[in-house]
Structure formats: C-alpha cells, structure tokens
C-alpha cells in the first residue's frame, strides 16, 4: 500500500481557514473521509494529488512531496470528481478513455486494446462511439472512472462520486469503487458505504475530529451532528 502523510497541514482561502493543523498518515486499503459541508474534507482529498497546495505544512505520497512532484504523483493517484461532466473531455466515450493515454508512447493498437478492456470492465461495451454527453449520470461517472483507471494508477481518490446520482446508480458506482484492487480514498456523505472500510477520518472545521474504524468514527460523526445513531 502507498503511504499518504499530512504533516501539520494548514490551508486557507483568503481569511477563511479550511484546514487547521492536520496530521495524518494513511496507509490502509480502503479509507473514508466524512464531514459536514464546508468542513474541509474535499480540500484534504485534493491535496493528495496536489490539486490544492497547503498554505503551510506538507503532504507526501510514498515519500514524494506532492507540492514538488505533483505530476509524478498524479500519474499514480487517479481522481474522480463529483460531477463527471467536468471530467469528460472528448466527444465520444472511446475517445475520452483514450485521451488519458496520449503522450504515453503506446501504439494506436495498444491504446485501442486498453480502451476496449476498460469499456468491458466498466459496463460501457457498446458505447464506444456513443456521444459522452448523452450518457446517463451513472454511465458518465463510470466513464470518468474508466478514463482514470485506464492509466493504471496505484490509488484512486473519489470526491463525493455518488452525490449527483440516483440510489441505483449510487449503489452501482459504490460497488465498482469498493471492488477495485487499487487503494481507494472516498470522500462521502453516504455513511453506509463505509461499513467495510479499514479506516474512517472525520473532518470538522478543518481539523481531524475522529480517526478510527468505521463504527467508532461514524458514531463520533453522528454525535457531532447531534443526530441519532
């Protein structure tokens, strides 16, 4: 497993403090990050592959400083966003998956084979020539996932990947995410997803409020929200 280390990480947007002294070392296979809206959990997730830099402190991925080696880290850490529409670049499904493999030195036939593999794996076979923007919400998220996984990252970070989906598609995406062989970090509001995870981190007002096995961390989170367990 890869190791993500946050050392005294602070981050602020102007005067608004988003993360306030976060220290974490994440090495587990399945890691959940939960917290209320605006708690800083998405910012924390974006720091793993350098999309957001800490105002102070450091984030390392397998010893590499993400601020200095962002490109190298991003080749190993795939990222799935809440809205797949922002992640889809090319007009058709096949072209979008292939887009990830440009400048990799692979031949056209190798790229075609890898695209076919992803289409089959993520249930998009038959949609290769289909306009990407006409897919359903669930299919778009599957496409976003396929487009990331075709690059064979060692870790996947997903920021609320099911928020915009209906219950059936949310369940499908969750099943796909949890079945991946890669190390997975999921930011979510869907607490039931985290039951089988190895570790859950609760972020509250930019700080780590709880960091434990799912049952304990979720219980603490519900206490913070003053919701019944």
């Amino acid at each position, binding site marked *: 497993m890869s190791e993500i280390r946050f050392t005294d990480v602070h981050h602020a947007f102007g005067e608004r403090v988003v993360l306030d002294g976060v220290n974490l070392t994440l090495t587990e296979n399945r890691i959940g990050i939960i917290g209320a809206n605006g708690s800083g959990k998405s910012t924390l997730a*974006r720091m793993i*592959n350098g*999309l957001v830099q800490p105002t102070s402190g450091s984030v390392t991925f397998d010893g590499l400083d993400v601020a200095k080696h962002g*490109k190298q880290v*991003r*080749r190993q850490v*795939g*990222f799935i*966003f809440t*809205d797949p*529409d*922002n*992640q*889809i*670049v*090319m*007009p*058709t499904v096949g*072209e979008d998956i*292939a*887009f*990830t493999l*440009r*400048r990799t030195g692979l031949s056209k036939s190798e790229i075609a084979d890898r695209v076919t593999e992803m289409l089959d794996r993520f249930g998009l076979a038959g949609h290769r*020539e289909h*306009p*990407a*923007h*006409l897919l359903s919400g669930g299919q778009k998220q599957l496409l976003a996932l396929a*487009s*990331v996984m075709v*690059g064979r990252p060692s870790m996947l970070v997903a920021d609320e990947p099911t928020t915009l989906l209906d219950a059936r598609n949310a369940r499908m995406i969750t099943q796909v995410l949890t079945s991946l062989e890669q190390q997975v970090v999921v930011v979510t509001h869907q607490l039931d997803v985290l039951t089988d995870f190895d570790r859950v981190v609760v972020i509250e007002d930019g700080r780590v409020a709880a960091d434990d096995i799912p049952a304990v961390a979720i219980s603490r989170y519900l206490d913070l929200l003053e919701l019944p367990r």
Partner: protein
Amino acid sequence: MIGLYLPGNSILHRTPAGLKLLLLAVGVFVVVWLKQPWQIGIALVVTAGLYAVAGIGRRAALSQLAPLRWIIPLLLVFQIILSNWQHALMTTGSLVINVALAALITLTTKVTAILDVAQRLLRPLRRFGVDPDRVGLMLALTIRCIPMVAGIVREVSEARKARGITGIRGSMMALAAPAVVRALRSADAMGEALTARGVDD
C-alpha cells in the same frame, strides 16, 4: 462535431481524415465556381449519392441542413429581387451543397481524427512557439464545451421560468448572469479535472 459522428464502415468512414478535408476543400472550390443551374443539380445528386455511400439515412442527412431553414428562403427571395431566379438558385444551391458536404465529413469522421490532422498541419509552427498538442486540446475542449454551455443555459432558463421571471430585460439579466457564473465555475472545475488527468504533464 458534438457527437454527430455516426459510426460506420463505409469507404467514407475509412478514408483518412486529411484526405477527406482536402477533398472537401476541392469540392467547395468547384461548387463555388459552377456557372449553370444544371451543374448545381448534378452536384446535388453527387452529394446525395455520397450520403448514400456513407450509409446515412434521409432523416440524419436532412437534419444537417436544419440550421439553414430560415436562411435559405430569405436568401432565395433577396437574390430573386436583386438579381434573377437562376442566380438565386445557384447561390442557395451552392450553400446547401457546401454545408451538406462539410456535415458529411463530420458524420463520418471522429473528432480525434480531425484533431490529429490539425496537429499535423500545425507541426511546422512549432519553431514559432506553437504547441500543436495544446492547440488540439483547445479545439477538443471547445467542441466539448458547446453542449455543456448549452445545458447550463437550458437549466438556468428553466429555473428562471420556474421562478416566474418574465419581461425581456429582467428575463435576460436573470438568464445571462447565472449562466455566465455557472459557465466560469464549470471552466474552473474542468481545469482542475484536466490537471488531475495529467494534461499539464
């Protein structure tokens, strides 16, 4: 281009994109230089034949000309008033044929193939600091963003109606301001996603 590509295995689908674009340029040049209405008639038949060879149905073919449905009658009337019916027929016929030919390229060519051609053509400009890959990506994003912006405008328009905002001035402000803000936010999010996908590598 925005997903208009119709998969197929016709000779037109298999012809390299560069050659198709070259033939399109030649075709447009020839059509513009036609002098007689009967020549336009032949060009129309040839164009229809090319659609048939590509295996594109009548409905899909006619939908390519739908954007011209207001321009053609106006152009026809103006040309008849200002010139004569032969000239009107020639002008409108040329326009229809050229649009149909260009649409045929779109229907039978993947965007990536067209971008590859654009990147190859731009390669000599590398010495002047032009990055063909960047230009290709920019073109791809432009094409991709058209349906995205259209979707934003549609959603904002629906929200505006749902809130009962009427009147041209208030209506336009209620449409433009949130649509621009949302488009800019989407652009930011897309930029972030592109970075995550290694576009800055």
